[in-house]
């Protein structure tokens, strides 16, 4: 699985995304019922979460099985800080900062110990499980941080809603929707931009060949640590948005959450950004529809999708669609762009 995203201009994609987001912000709250609006806000938060792993795994080559750890940490950091400070602006900074800080510590341990992929997977998974177990066991009054009760498996149902800075007025569902749209777009644009910077290209270089990157003078471990921390911060942001559309609970740390985000990236296409977000939306909507029908357990669908994609569509949807599109749009001999896709297999 390789690609030459490198020096391709990404301006058009970002511009298209901006237009789509603006349209959504203007139109959607006017036409959609409240329930749908809240649900879509939730999907947006998951989209940000999908981007965090799409960046880390697709471009950094770091497969984190426990991405939900940062997602959950962000949400808990936000809820605890907001309850204690009574102000949500600073708490939002905590939602991004705490997971990033935690990732810095964990990543130092992982990358500077030069642990291989598989161990990385095991350890990140384990860390998530530890957090899940710990948070689940924090029921009762003894477990509180300042004013905030951790609430064990019930979570923190009274997670404070984001408020306007200075005025302290809580955001309405429409405001939250707008915020989630902006956050998703901003994260997408940031990731898109990041991978074309010198830093981003160096990160891709390390993914491609760590030894060669080091022989050229790139500090591979520091680059991996940096992308790990950035990804954790993004996951924290996703957690913050999630906390505002539902509330904070230990399921955010759960293995199924970790599996879901992985599935979105696999389905959307490893090494792409738009694909995972699209897959996230599609699968969430499908899961919700299935859940409503009550015909089939969502795990069956998720599991089948993952197996089928790994075995039959290993590149994911976005590259597969792009290749198909190129085949339709170009004569059989193929344009250089087509060759590029082929070569990237």
């Amino acid at each position, binding site marked *: 699985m*390789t690609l030459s995203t490198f020096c391709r201009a990404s301006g058009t994609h970002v511009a298209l995304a901006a237009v789509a987001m603006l349209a959504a912000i203007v139109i959607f709250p006017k036409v959609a019922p409240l329930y749908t609006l809240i649900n879509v806000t939730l999907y947006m938060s998951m989209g940000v979460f999908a981007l965090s792993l799409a960046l880390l795994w697709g471009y950094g080559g770091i497969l984190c099985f426990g991405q939900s750890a940062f997602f959950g940490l962000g949400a808990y950091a936000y809820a605890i800080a907001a309850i204690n400070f009574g102000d949500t602006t600073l708490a939002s900074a905590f939602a991004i900062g705490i997971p990033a800080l935690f990732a810095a510590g964990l990543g130092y341990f992982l990358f500077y110990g030069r642990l291989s992929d598989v161990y990385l997977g095991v350890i990140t998974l384990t860390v998530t499980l530890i957090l899940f177990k710990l948070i689940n066991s924090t029921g009762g009054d003894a477990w509180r941080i300042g004013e905030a009760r951790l609430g064990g498996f019930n979570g923190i149902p009274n997670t404070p809603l984001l408020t306007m800075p200075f005025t302290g007025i809580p955001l309405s569902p429409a405001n939250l929707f707008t915020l989630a749209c902006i956050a998703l777009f901003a994260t997408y644009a940031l990731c898109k931009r990041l991978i074309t910077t010198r830093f981003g*290209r160096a990160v891709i270089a390390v993914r491609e060949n760590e*030894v*060669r990157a080091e022989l050229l*003078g790139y500090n591979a471990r520091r680059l991996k640590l940096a992308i790990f921390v950035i990804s954790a911060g993004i996951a924290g942001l996703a957690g913050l948005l999630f906390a505002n559309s539902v509330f904070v609970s230990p399921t955010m740390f759960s293995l199924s959450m970790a599996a879901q985000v992985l599935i979105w990236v696999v389905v959307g296409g490893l090494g792409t950004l738009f694909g995972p977000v699209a897959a996230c939306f599609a699968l969430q909507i499908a899961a919700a529809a299935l859940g409503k029908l009550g015909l089939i357990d969502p795990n069956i669908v998720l599991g089948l999708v993952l197996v089928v994609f790994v075995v039959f569509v290993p590149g994911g949807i976005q590259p597969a669609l792009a290749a198909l599109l190129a085949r339709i749009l170009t004569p059989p001999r193929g344009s250089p762009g087509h060759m590029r896709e082929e070569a990237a297999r």
Partner: protein
Amino acid sequence: MSVHLLEARDVAMHFGGVKALDGVDFRLKKGELRCLLGPNGAGKSTFFRCLTGTHKPTRGHILFKGTDIAGKERHDIARAGIGVKTQVPSLFDGLTTHENLWLALRTVRNAVAREEKIADVMERVGISPLRDNVLGRMAHGQRQLVELAMVVASDPDLVLLDEPAAGMTDGEVERLASIIRDLNRTHTVVVVEHDMHFIRMIADQVTVFHQGRILAEGHVESILANQTVRDVYLGKKHGA
């Protein structure tokens, strides 16, 4: 500060009980082109890996531009000004030639200067037609040349080449030899090699390794005439 660009003092490398290097003293002046040769297991590749930071020597010092680099991290050694071409080409297989070279030009910050330099290096090594080819799908000899181009592009003070001619066709070997001689006009070069034919094409000074030590050092023709060297290395090879 030593007059030498590179100076190894009593470098030893033990793997368990095996002494791969057993006290190597080695000096290299700026501008030299030196070949390291010796039969398999003589220690030349181990010495090479100590220079690149892949191995941390058990004992001894390696002074590069007056600083001890023994046991330093690979990227620190690279930043100090040592460029490496490994035995098996080590490249960014999913990226194109152009992108590989872009990455090699880590220190060039200006985009225009970078592109100019990439074009220049591709021309110099003769890989311009391969600009947009993905490395993973290129032939072995082409990959060797791209890797060499990356080393040239990064403009190091010392170029280390580990068996650069391995697996190349005769035509490619001749081109490689001329590239290396050309490179030596501006750079100090160390080549690890055991193909005598190739060494004769490029080298002037050679260092012969044997059993983890330096057996002989000097001009290529006089070394090849040296009876001890012939016995341990060439004699065996030609006599067989």
